């Protein structure tokens, strides 16, 4: 059914959203480029910049709709590219709901029914109701680096930084869903915007970042907003309260036991 596409579970949404959020908000070394860098290198550097070895953070997510808005708070742990754990801390009604992503597998935990559900791959490839992120944005964070050819088509100055406009087109036969992408990357490798175009070149949605400042000892945007082009009054915003970048996390963090019964 068509509508199924737009509706998966909130908890999945949260988990994937956090995966992306951290991916974009993660770590790296600020590097001031002198000459215009090679586009592929720039994108890779930006990707490395926002991806730390491991992270622990708290954030809240606001889903905005005409006449309706909801904010949830959550705590997030990530390690490497593929592992993450999200636990909702507020509102009280949803407290304790959790999502564990380990490799390509994903589990949900709901404290009310006290059960863990493993999501089938078919559901991970869907988008979900109530948010403007799609699972594909979230699950395939490294696709941007590996599946696209990049080209810097413009350079501008903004707030004392050089901003590179990158256009990314899929490599032949790459398993991607977008016709093309546009990125705005600052010279210190902070991603400012990402625009998603369909195969006809029409803008589908846009991710913008703001509140750039120090977060966990690095220069990062604290706020990420995803907005679909068709519905300007609907958006989802992710805002980081705090974020830290330990070298690694204990193995027990990313386990079903921990998903079910938090040990911290």
């Amino acid at each position, binding site marked *: 059914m068509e509508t*199924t596409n737009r*509706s*998966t*579970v909130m908890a999945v949404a949260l988990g994937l959203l956090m995966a992306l959020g951290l991916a974009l908000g993660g770590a790296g070394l600020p590097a001031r480029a002198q000459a215009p860098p090679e586009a592929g290198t720039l994108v890779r550097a930006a990707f490395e910049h926002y991806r730390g070895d491991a992270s622990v953070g708290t954030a809240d997510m606001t889903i905005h709709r005409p006449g*309706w808005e909801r904010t949830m708070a959550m705590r997030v742990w990530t390690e490497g590219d593929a592992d993450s754990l999200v636990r909702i801390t507020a509102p009280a*009604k949803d407290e304790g*709901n959790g999502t564990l992503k380990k490799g390509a597998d994903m589990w949900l935990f709901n404290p009310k*029914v006290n*059960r863990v559900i493993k999501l089938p791959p078919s559901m991970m490839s869907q988008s*979900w109701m109530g948010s403007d992120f799609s699972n594909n944005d979230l699950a395939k964070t490294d696709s941007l680096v590996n599946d696209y050819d990049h080209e810097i088509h413009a350079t501008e100055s903004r707030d004392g930084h050089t901003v590179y406009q990158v256009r990314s087109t899929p490599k032949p036969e790459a398993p991607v869903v977008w016709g093309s992408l546009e990125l705005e990357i600052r010279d210190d490798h902070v991603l400012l915007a990402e625009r998603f175009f369909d195969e006809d070149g029409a803008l589908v949605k846009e991710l913008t970042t703001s509140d750039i400042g120090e977060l966990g000892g690095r220069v990062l945007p604290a706020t990420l907003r995803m907005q679909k082009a068709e519905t300007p009054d609907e958006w989802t915003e992710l805002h980081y309260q705090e974020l830290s970048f330990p070298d690694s996390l204990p193995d027990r963090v990313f386990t079903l036991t921990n998903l079910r019964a938090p040990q911290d």
Partner: protein
Amino acid sequence: MSIELRMAWRNVWRNPRRTWLTVAAIAFACLVLVFMLSFQLGSYASMIDSSVKIEAGHLQVQAEGYQDDREMRQVVRDPAAVERALSGIPEIEAFTRRASAFAVVSSEDRTYGALVIGVDPVHEPEVSSLESLVREGSFLGSSADPGGSGDGALVGELLARNLQVGLGDELTVIGQGRDGSVAATVLVVRGIFSSGIDDFDRSAVHMPLATFQEVFAMGDAVHEVVAVGRDLWEVPEIVRRLRGALAGLSQTPPLVVLDWNELMPGLLQSIQVDLVSGLIFYVALILVVAFSILNTFLMAFLERTRELGVMMAIGTTPGRLGRLLLLESLLLTGVGIAVGIALGCAVTLYFQAHGIDVSGANELLARFGISGRMYPRLSVLSALVGPLLVLVVTGAAALYPALKIRRLRPVEALTHV
């Protein structure tokens, strides 16, 4: 009675056997047309009825946009007020409330996305055929489920197979509530239904509405108020009156009334395809009848050439003779059509009362859950359209001999054998 009419009537019965045969041909064509058209129209009505009664109902009241978007927040805030409006319309037979949400449904070791529908265990059977579609176990809140304990679930046959669950097994449902919160509950499979519509049987889980409203944070709100009228043919009138009655009920998004055609687009097209193939058959039938009647008229004209010659010789104008021949054919056709309509109505009314078994109905329609007995439906339209066409076509056929008279030379005609 004018002289022409009297002469025409006598001429018609000068050869009773031939007249009866022609009358029989016309009558038979009319009978078939009346019955077939009544059957088609009537069976479409029962097809639509049985198809829409699986789920959609004759009409629904929803929040604007819900039909397309299926967003949790697009609710009917005050279903009681909508039901008061429905109660004021005498053509409404029954109505019920529903709410639904897409959710992850999980058994012990399988997980699928499903449409979870909250239904009112008391009123749902009055509106939809859901209760009769239960193949295993029992309907929600029935005697086998004492007190209608709130955690019962009715699962589509294909979904139950996919999830590998049977009666008494537990299902975990996790979705998103109307307020955006995580909605989760555990249900126990009480029944397994099969509608014959794969999409529905593969994706639907029914649960008691009260439990649904609690789990999905719906409050008193629902997504659909579903109604059936006494008769499918009265739906447009009901919709019109309901729109008027709901005009005073304001909410955002506003309420809309959708009829079965808007709820199940595609059903009507399938029926139109079937109707067109029926029309081709009717055209062929009418053409065959037309040629056999043309033959009769032509024979009547040729064997009476001498007689017509005599009438012309004593001063009858060709125009008057033409009128006479037309009148004869009109009387002949009239008798045939009258007999045909009478017999057609009789046959139709018989099957209207007893039904026709069409369990092997065509596949296109089976897709919409159409099977079982069909009932023709006699109406002014179905009783008159076919015979009227026969009248027009035979009238055209009778023109030919009537016009031929003008070329008749009395002298030659008199010597005609």
